[in-house]
């Protein structure tokens, strides 16, 4: 109890300090403000400086919300050139980390530790590594958050494809949702969650459906909400990626600006200008686990919940902070709640939308492409 009181007091001061740093950045470079509707909640984001906004906002563009509704969460984001010594965790949090029920020395020896604090009032994700720092601090009571990114030679250290993922994970997992490493396609009537490890076919399936009546909810990170035994996948990002050699296989990509990714031999794109190809949220009718085959055509086959969990669990459990045990438990509830299938991908993927459509019809969801 005493520890908690110390933490809260420390985090009050920490929040105030980061907010003051944000104000200073705004004084120097102005602010860009946008609101987004994410998983049904209105999130107001203020970026300090135009340059940060150009990195931060494209992946969220499809969720832009122009209503006058009150925001559930107001987020201030800034990038700063900071020395590691300036990033010290609040003393009480560091002390708590040292005695936390985690293995000894983990945060001492790890090259890039993530500290996650989930208190009654404050939630914090604190990540720092060489040339990459992301500190997200949420004040649950006030519905306020501040995010500090490291400025590296004028470029904020963030994954433009998945901005604010730690913050959004903290906020939405507190509300019972779960971050999953998956793609999803469908419509407001129903869709499929596509579960695979990196390189396992998530993007292949999402790209095969691009520009069809099966709309894109995401190809890498999604929020999943379970309510009364039913699952719903909420879009987070409209970013996607494709191997350079495969670009010509997907005609809709011809209309997009493709940029090379720095971390993988892939091209990155944003779909914010193509709202008709996108969907904000889909009821999850089934989970598909893709599997590359040498067959000519694609087809689905029943799979066990265990097969889906074996793919979805390990690749999701450690994403972007949070509580691994809780996330795994929620993912297990998901695979129990919806039917699971293997999607045996043929050499040509042009038939994937029709195969998915047939499956949705079989599951009782209205055919989409017919």
């Amino acid at each position, binding site marked *: *109890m005493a*520890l*908690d009181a110390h*933490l809260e007091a420390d985090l009050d001061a920490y929040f105030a300090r980061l907010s003051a740093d944000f104000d200073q950045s705004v004084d120097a470079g102005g602010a860009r403000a946008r609101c987004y509707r994410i998983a049904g909640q209105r999130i107001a984001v203020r970026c300090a400086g135009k340059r940060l906004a150009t990195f931060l906002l494209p992946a969220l563009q499809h969720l832009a919300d122009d209503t006058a509704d009150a925001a559930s969460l107001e987020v201030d984001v800034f990038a700063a050139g900071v020395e590691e010594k300036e990033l010290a965790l609040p003393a009480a*949090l560091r002390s*708590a*980390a040292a005695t*936390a*029920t*985690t*293995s000894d020395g*983990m*945060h001492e020896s*790890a090259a*890039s*530790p*993530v*500290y*996650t*604090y*989930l*208190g*009654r009032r404050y939630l914090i994700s604190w*990540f720092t590594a060489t040339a990459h720092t992301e500190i997200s601090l949420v004040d649950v009571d006030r519905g306020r958050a501040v995010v500090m990114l490291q400025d590296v030679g004028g470029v904020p250290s963030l994954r433009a494809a998945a901005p604010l993922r730690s913050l959004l994970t903290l906020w939405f997992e507190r509300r019972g949702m779960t971050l999953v490493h998956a793609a999803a396609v469908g419509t407001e009537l129903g869709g499929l969650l596509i579960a695979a*490890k*990196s390189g396992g076919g998530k993007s292949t399936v999402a790209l095969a459906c691009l520009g069809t009546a099966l709309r894109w909810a995401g190809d890498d990170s999604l929020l999943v909400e379970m309510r009364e035994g039913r699952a719903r996948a909420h879009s987070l990002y409209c970013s996607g990626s494709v191997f350079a050699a495969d670009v010509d296989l997907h005609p809709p990509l011809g209309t997009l600006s493709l940029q090379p990714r720095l971390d993988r031999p892939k091209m990155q794109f944003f779909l914010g200008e193509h709202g008709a190809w996108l969907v904000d949220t889909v009821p999850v009718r089934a989970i598909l686990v893709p599997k590359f085959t040498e067959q000519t055509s694609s087809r689905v086959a029943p799979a*066990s*919940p*265990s097969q889906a*969990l*074996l793919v979805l*669990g*390990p*690749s999701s*459990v*450690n994403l*972007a*902070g*949070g*509580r*691994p*045990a809780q996330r*795994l*438990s929620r*993912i*297990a509830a998901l*695979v*129990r709640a919806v039917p699971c299938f293997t999607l045996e991908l043929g050499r040509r993927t042009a038939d994937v939308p029709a195969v998915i459509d047939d499956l949705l019809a079989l599951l009782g969801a209205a055919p989409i492409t017919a």
Partner: protein
Amino acid sequence: MRPALLRPDSVFALGHPRVVHEILDPKDALLIDLEQGVYYHLEDVAATIWKSALEGLPLEAIATAVERNYSGCEDQLPAAVAAFAQALLDEGLLTLASGPANGASTAPSVVEHEPTPYRAPSLDRFTDLQELLRADPICEVLNPND
């Protein structure tokens, strides 16, 4: 160094806090060791042993639980169960506990499913996501009142 031989009254606990696991049904479990970046899939007898161990059953009772839920068990079942428990200890997924946890039963689990054919327990071990699972080790600091 291998620990001392297991005894019929040996009881177990989760190896360390960075092991997360989910028992999907009585015959299927997923274990993830976030420290080592390794994950495991346990089926049938292996999953029953894991589940029974975490229920606080002593080794002898774990073997009885296996016997009740599987048909055609091998003659040396207690030795097979002990060998598998030892493998879980060696992987750091389990640790020896000093005694039954509070409230834990020392009686074998009830029959949880129709007896299915016995297959020797095996530990399916996966290292393909090691980098991902270990890349961002999380120091989880929870509110004591949470």
